[in-house]
């Protein structure tokens, strides 16, 4: 079961859905304009290396605060994690003095910044809490394509976790083949454009409900048919497939 209630303007507890525990990971790209509401929903905020520069420099423009100083004091990440080759020294010092934990992983060059952050969250979350935790990630899409591909691979490598990649234009989730998925659409903030992609391996059978062009035991494969420019037509979309699929939905103009 999936819902994007983290995009609603204030903490919102829909009926019949378990309380979600959110973590926010900020990577080193321009902040999406709705980041303040993600920050407000999250219990844990981690900046991956240069993501801390982004919060320091850009958060003020996303808020209605009076001055930059009060924004900086208000938006302090709990953790700054990564190899520390992008974060500016004065930014690191500022957040250190404000109480952020600086977790220097410069010895580990094998994995991306997002991988390190997700790995950390994965390690510290007990198994029974994993399904209740949703990790929101900004800055994972766009920019260098190999980074984007690696960030999408993190969804596959940690498929027992709920991870949502967000940009100004859309969000992406992995729908593992092991489950039948129900996606609750928050139509005030997301839609109508959506898609389903068999990025890892082809699907010989995918079935959906709630879309304008539903799939019914349909095959999907790169080089042939994949579901792009589809439209959500219901508050609930269901997806069942024999392959892991990436789900994407467009985001409305949120401020």
């Amino acid at each position: 079961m999936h819902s994007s209630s983290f995009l609603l303007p204030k903490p919102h507890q829909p009926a019949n859905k378990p309380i979600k525990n959110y973590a926010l990971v900020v990577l080193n790209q321009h902040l999406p304009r709705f980041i303040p509401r993600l920050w407000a929903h999250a219990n844990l905020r981690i900046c991956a290396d240069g993501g801390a520069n982004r919060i320091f420099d850009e958060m003020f423009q996303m808020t209605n605060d009076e001055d930059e100083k009060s924004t900086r004091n208000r938006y302090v990440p709990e953790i700054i994690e990564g190899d520390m080759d992008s974060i500016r020294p004065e930014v690191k010092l500022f957040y250190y003095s404000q109480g952020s934990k600086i977790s220097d992983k410069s010895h580990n060059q094998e994995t991306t910044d997002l991988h390190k952050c997700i790995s950390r969250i994965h390690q510290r979350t007990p198994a029974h809490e994993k399904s209740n935790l949703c990790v929101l990630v900004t800055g994972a899409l766009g920019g260098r394509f190999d980074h984007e591909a690696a960030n999408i691979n993190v969804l596959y490598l940690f498929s027992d976790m709920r991870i949502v990649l967000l940009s100004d234009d859309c969000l992406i989730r992995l729908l593992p083949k092991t489950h039948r998925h129900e996606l609750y659409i928050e139509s005030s903030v997301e839609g109508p454009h959506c898609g389903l992609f068999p990025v890892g391996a082809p699907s010989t059978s995918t079935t959906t409900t709630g879309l304008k062009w539903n799939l019914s035991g349909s095959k999907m494969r790169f080089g042939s048919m994949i579901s792009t420019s589809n439209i959500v037509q219901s508050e609930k979309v269901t997806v069942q497939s024999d392959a892991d699929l990436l789900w994407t939905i467009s985001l409305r103009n949120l401020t």
Partner: protein
Amino acid sequence: MRHSSAFLLPSPPPAGGGPAADVALVVLNQPLPRFAPLLWSRAALRVCADGGANRVFDGMPELLPDQDPDEVRARYKPDVIKGDMDSVRPEVKEYYSNMGTRIVDDSHDQDTTDLHKCITFVVKNSDNSNLCILVLGAVGGRFDHEMGNINVLHMFPNINIVLLSDACLIFLLPRTHAHEIHIERSIEGPHCGLIPIGMPSTSTTTTGLRWNLDNTSMNYGGLISTSNIVEEDKVTVTSESDLIWTVSLQK
């Protein structure tokens, strides 16, 4: 199969470097990368997909702020505007139409993406067997559009199509060929990657990279080659599966 990004060099490549590619440019509906004027001057055919015409109309004068906007627009005039015409602004369409741009209205065909239609059009209107189609605005923005555009690479494996952004370029390495990628070190690299989109790869072998693959398997959920580094002017790749090659572009 030989690949080269000589089209990105600031001056035309020297003669004797191999047969000149017949370059076509397709502009999709996203902000232009900074090198758009350079690619425009290299292309024999320039096609705007629908709202891509807005981007050229607005964006070219912005990229060339020292020049008169009307002169820029006359110089960077698309040969064709093609698509379902639901994004191109009416005044932009009229402006270019008055200047001789051919308007091809596809609004009856909703089954294929804008890029798909443009590729089909360019192929039909080019007779050069050495065709290279450069595409601007295919990556970033809405992810379903980006996936659809990458799918177009898979659907036309025998056509040389390169997707470009400010940050990087992408093209398909079809499994049917051994590939030689010539790196223009003044503009490309060093960051690169090889990504098996749509199908796991059981065996890939490379030369010329910092972390070469040696009969290595790659798949989503396992290893994919990202944040690799180009170490030589020539990179070779063979794989039993189609791969996406990407290399960063320098500022």
